[in-house]
């Protein structure tokens, strides 16, 4: 596993808040040269610590007013292949994330929809008809914060 020093941590904290800043601007804040900063970012990318960049959009402003977290239980465990369910659910464009979990539910989905009627359409026509889909529990997102984490 990659060993990180304080400067690496500072770079990660800065990029988690704003990945739009270049190595030059970031280096100046941390008292590093542009090439030194660039080399460190490169090393973090190569070690897969930096998995990628995400464009932050205001979902409501682009027409997605509703985000729902859906817990899904498979109805007939063993009979339906998990792969079939996973492939079918991943193909739904409104489904942003699919996580296989242990606990009350088998899968946790994050779904975006234009509004509640649109969500109902996705739920009835796309989710409930999936191979093996059983009980579902929907929680409508009201607010969300992402924190920097232990870096």
């Amino acid at each position, binding site marked *: *596993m*990659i060993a*990180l020093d304080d400067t690496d941590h500072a770079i*990660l904290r800065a*990029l*988690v*808040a*704003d*990945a*739009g800043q270049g190595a030059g601007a970031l280096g100046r804040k941390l008292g590093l040269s542009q090439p030194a900063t660039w080399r460190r970012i490169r090393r973090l990318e190569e070690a*897969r*610590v*930096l*998995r*990628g*960049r*995400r*464009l*932050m*959009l*205001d*979902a409501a*402003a*682009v*027409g*997605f007013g509703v985000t729902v*977290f859906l*817990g899904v239980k498979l109805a007939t465990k063993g009979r339906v292949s998990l792969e079939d369910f*996973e492939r079918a*659910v*991943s193909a739904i464009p*409104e*489904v*942003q*994330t*699919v*996580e*296989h*979990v*242990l*606990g*009350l539910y088998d*899968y*946790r989905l*994050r779904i*975006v929809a234009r509004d509640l009627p649109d969500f109902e359409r996705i739920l009835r026509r796309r989710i409930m008809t999936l191979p093996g889909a059983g009980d579902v*529990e*929907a*929680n*409508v*997102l*009201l*607010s*969300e*914060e*992402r*924190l920097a*984490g*232990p*870096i």
Partner: protein
Amino acid sequence: MLNEEDRRILRYLQEDPTLSQSELAERARLSPSMVARRLTRMEERGIITGTVAVIDWQALGYAVEVSLRFTLDKTLPRAFDEFLTAARAVPEVLEIQTFLGRVDVRLSVIARDMAHYQEVYRSRILTLPHIAEIEALMHVARIKWQESLPV
């Protein structure tokens, strides 16, 4: 609202936020000046709010990820605020979401291993104020992780 050019730009930019404006123009088959103009407009209107780095916590040695779902004691008027303030101070908490539904709040918590998780859970999660109920979903695998919006 978005026009067809905006949607095209956002589709490519969500796929790869590191694209330069000229690369973006080429892929979206638009002129560079058009891309520059549409991007500026979307930033000014708060549609694009920025770019952030995504960290792979497994690569940093955090093997355990748990989704903790809380219902709070809502007889106390400040229960939500006090719970959220305390949860923000826990370094291992990556995400905080509030919901309309059976679950009030969800925390995404990471730990190095199960022993570390137990320690975090006992000393920092169970001590959060106003908890009525907790459910845990243990993360097993990430099947789809594409937090782009189907614009």
